[in-house]
C-alpha cells in the first residue's frame, strides 16, 4: 500500500519531473540554457500559446472541443496590424478585436448549444469561415508595418522593470484569474460538473448550455488577446498565423490532465504542460537539434506520459 502511494505520487508529478530532468540535460549540453535571460525567453515564447491553451482548458473541461481559436487569433492579429497601418489608435483596435473574439465565442456557443452541432465539427466550420475572412482582409498574404505607436508595442515588446517581458506579465495575470475561477470557485465546479455529466448537471440545477456557451466565449476572448500579443510582438502576421498554435495548445490541455489529477484537465496541468513543450523546443534549438527532432520527442513523451496515466488507472482493478 505504501509502495502504491509513492508510485501514484510519482505518476502525478511526472511532468515536472521530466521538465527537471530535461532541464538538467540541456544545462549540461548548453551553457546558455540556465541563464536567466534564456529562462525568461522560454516564458516569453510560451505566452501566446499558453493563453490559448488556458482558454481551451475551459472548453475541454466543459466537455466540448473548439478548433476555431486559431482563426480567432489570426483575425485578431491581422486586424490589429491593419488598423495600425491605417493609423488607428491601438486601444481602439484592441477593444475591437476583443469584441470580435467575444462574437466568435458566441457564434460557436450558438452552433453547439442551440443548433446542437457536435463541437468538433461545428468549430471546424467556424475555423474555415473566419479563416476565409482573415485571408480576405490580408489579401491572402502577410500584413506588416514598421510604423506603429508606443502603445501598440507594449503588449508584445515592453519590458516591465526593464527585464520582464510584457507577454509574461499578461500570461501571469490570465493564468492567475483563470486558475482561481476554474479550480476555486462555484462557477469552476460547474464547468467540471457539466463536462463530467451534462444531464446530471442539469438535474443538479446547473444550466449546462450556459456553462458550455461561457467556455466558448472565454476562449474566444483569450484567443483574441493572444492575437493582440502576436501583432505587437512581431509587427507582422500572416493570415493563418494562429494555426501553428492550435494543436500544441490542445495537446497541452490533454498532457496537462495527467498533472496532479488523474486524467482530469486542469489549469495547473495546462500551464505545466505548456512550459514543458516550450522547454523542449528551446533546449533543442540551443543544442542544435532541428524541429523534427523536437516533434519526434514531443510525440514520444506524450504517448509515454499518457500510457503511464492509463496504466495507473487500470491498476485500480
Amino acid at each position, binding site marked *: 500500500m505504501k509502495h502504491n502511494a509513492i508510485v501514484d505520487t510519482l505518476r502525478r508529478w511526472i511532468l515536472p519531473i521530466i521538465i527537471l530532468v530535461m532541464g538538467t540535460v540541456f544545462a549540461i549540453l548548453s551553457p546558455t540554457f540556465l541563464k536567466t535571460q534564456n529562462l525568461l525567453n522560454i516564458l516569453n515564447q510560451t505566452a501566446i500559446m499558453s493563453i490559448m491553451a488556458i482558454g481551451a482548458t475551459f472548453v475541454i473541461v466543459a466537455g466540448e472541443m473548439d478548433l476555431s481559436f486559431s482563426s480567432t487569433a489570426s483575425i485578431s492579429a491581422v486586424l490589429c496590424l491593419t488598423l495600425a497601418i491605417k493609423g488607428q489608435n491601438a486601444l481602439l483596435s484592441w477593444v475591437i478585436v476583443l469584441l470580435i473574439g467575444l462574437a466568435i465565442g458566441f457564434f460557436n456557443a450558438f452552433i453547439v448549444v442551440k443548433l446542437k452541432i457536435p463541437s468538433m465539427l461545428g468549430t471546424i466550420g467556424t475555423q474555415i469561415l473566419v479563416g476565409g475572412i482573415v485571408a480576405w482582409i490580408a489579401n491572402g498574404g502577410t500584413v506588416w508595418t514598421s510604423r506603429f505607436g508606443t502603445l501598440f508595442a507594449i503588449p508584445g515588446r515592453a519590458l516591465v522593470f526593464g527585464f520582464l517581458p510584457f507577454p509574461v506579465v499578461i500570461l501571469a495575470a490570465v493564468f492567475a484569474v483563470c486558475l482561481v475561477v476554474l479550480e*476555486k470557485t462555484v462557477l469552476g465546479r460547474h464547468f467540471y460538473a457539466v463536462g463530467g455529466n451534462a444531464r*446530471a448537471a442539469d438535474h443538479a440545477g446547473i444550466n449546462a448550455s450556459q456553462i458550455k456557451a461561457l467556455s466558448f466565449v472565454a476562449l474566444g476572448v483569450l484567443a483574441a488577446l493572444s492575437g493582440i500579443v502576436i501583432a505587437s510582438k512581431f509587427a507582422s502576421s500572416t493570415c493563418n498565423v494562429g494555426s501553428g498554435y492550435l494543436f500544441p495548445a490542445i495537446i497541452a490541455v490533454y498532457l496537462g490532465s495527467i498533472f496532479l489529477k488523474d486524467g482530469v484537465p486542469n489549469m495547473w496541468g495546462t500551464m505545466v504542460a505548456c512550459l514543458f513543450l516550450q522547454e523542449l523546443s528551446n533546449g533543442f534549438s540551443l543544442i542544435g537539434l532541428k524541429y523534427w527532432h523536437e516533434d519526434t520527442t514531443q510525440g514520444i513523451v506524450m504517448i509515454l506520459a499518457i500510457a503511464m496515466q492509463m496504466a495507473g488507472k487500470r491498476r485500480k482493478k
Partner: protein
Amino acid sequence: MSQAVALELRGITKRFPGVVANEDIHMVIEKGEIRAIMGENGAGKSTLCNMITGLLSPTEGELLFEGRKREFHHPKDALAAGIRMVYQERNLIEYLTGAQSICLGLEDRKGRFFVDEKRMLERAVAICQEIGADVPLNVPVEYLSVAQQQMIEIIRAVAHDPRLLILDEPTASLGSAEVKILFSVMRKLKEKGVAIVIITHKIDEVFEIADTITILRNGRLVDTVKNGDIDRMDAVRMMLGRDVSSQFPEVVNTAKKEKALEVRNLTDVGKRVSHINLNVCQGEVVGLYGLLGSGRTEILESIYGLRGILEGEVFLHGEICPPGKRSGDMIKKGVFLIPEDRRHLSIFREFFTIRENLSIGYLDQISGFLGMISRKKERKLFRDITSREELRVKYARENQDIEELSGGNQQKLVLGRWIYRKNLELLLLDEPTHGIDVGVKYDIYVLIRKMAARGKGILVVSSELPELTGICDRLYIIKDGQIKGELSRREFENEKILEMVL
C-alpha cells in the same frame, strides 16, 4: 467431485486499496440451484460476482467451474465458458436497438461479413415471445425506460443458453409484472439444469425464488442456509448483525392545510401525461403509484422544469411557477428531485470524486466571497453527511471515484446530496430506495417521516407498493399518463390499488 456441481469458490479474497471486499469465501453451487446472496450495502456481493465473470480478479483463492479450475481474466473468457451476468449498473450501448443489444457479439450473418438485421430482429422477437416479455426491439435502447432497458439486459443474458446465470439486483428497477416474468424464466432455466445466482435486497423475492441463501457481512460469509430454514427476522439479523424491529416507522399524520405543491390540469409537451391534478400539503408524504411506463417519472420531470409543459400550471406554496423555469430556479425555491436513473442523471463519474459528488448539492452553503469554495467546509460537510446515522455511507477515501462505491452506497450519497439542504421545502423522490439494504431503508423511511413532521412536502414514486402504503399519507394511482384515483391512508388496500392500475 460430483457431476452436479456448477461452481465452487475456494478461499476467495479480494482487497481494494483501503478495503477488504471479500475475505476467504467458500461456496458451492449446484446445477439447477437458485442461490440468493444477501447482505447489506457494501457487504461484497457484487464484488464476489464480478470475480466469477472475470471483470475483477481475486487477490487470493481459486474458482472451479464445472469441476475444472479456471482463471477468467476478462468477461469474454467467462462468456465462452457459459457464464452470463446481468450487472448491477446497466451497461447497454445507447444507440443499438433492443434486438441488436440482445444479439450483441452473437450477430446473425449473411455470408461471412454482413450482419443479418432482419433475422436478428426475428430471433429477438421470438425470444421475447417465448418468455412473455413485451419490450420494443427496434428502437435504440436510449429511448427506452429504465425498466425496459433492464429487461433487455436480462433477455440478453438468458437468451444464449447460459450454464451459470448471475443476476445482480435485477429487480431493483422492475415492476411486479416484470419480476413475475423474470422469475418464470428463472424457473424454466432451473429445470434445464442452469445454476443461478441472484442478488437482491427484497427479502420476499428471496423467499419466493431461492433454493438456498448465502449471507455476507463485511466481506465475510456468515452462513449458507436452505430456503425455509430461516425467517425474515433471522435473515435481517444475519445481514446486519442486529435486529430491525419493523419494516416501516409509525405514520403520524402531520399534514397542514397549506399546500407545498399544487399541479393543475398539467399536460406535458410530449403528451406522455395529460390533465394531471395533484397536490402535496406541507408535512405530508404523498405517493405516486402506477405500472412502469405509466408516466410517473414524467410527472416529476414536468413539475421540475426538465420537461416542457403544454398546458396547465404548477404552484409552489400557492405561488405559480412561470413556464420556462429551470431546475436551478426550483432548487432556489427549495424543491429537489432525486431521479431514478442514477447512472445517467445523478452521478458524476468523470472529473468528480465522491466528495465533490456530494458537495455539488451544497456549493452555496460552503462558498463565500466571489463564489470561492472553502475546502475546509467542503471536507467537514462530507464527513458530517456521510456519517449521519441514517446514511452511514461506506467508503475508503474521500477522493475515491464514485464508481468504486457499492451500488447502495452510491444511492445513499445521491440522497445525501439534497436531503439535508437548509432551504428544503419539497422533495420529489423517484425510487429513492433503489438498491438500498433493509437496514438503511428503514432509516430512510424514518427520515422521510421526520422531514414531513418538520412541515416539508414529499412526493414519492416507487414500484414497490408496500413501500408506498408503508410510509405515505395519501396515494395517487397513475395509469397511461392519467390519474386514475386518489386514496387516503385509511383506504389503502392492496387488491383495490392493483385493480386500479391494471
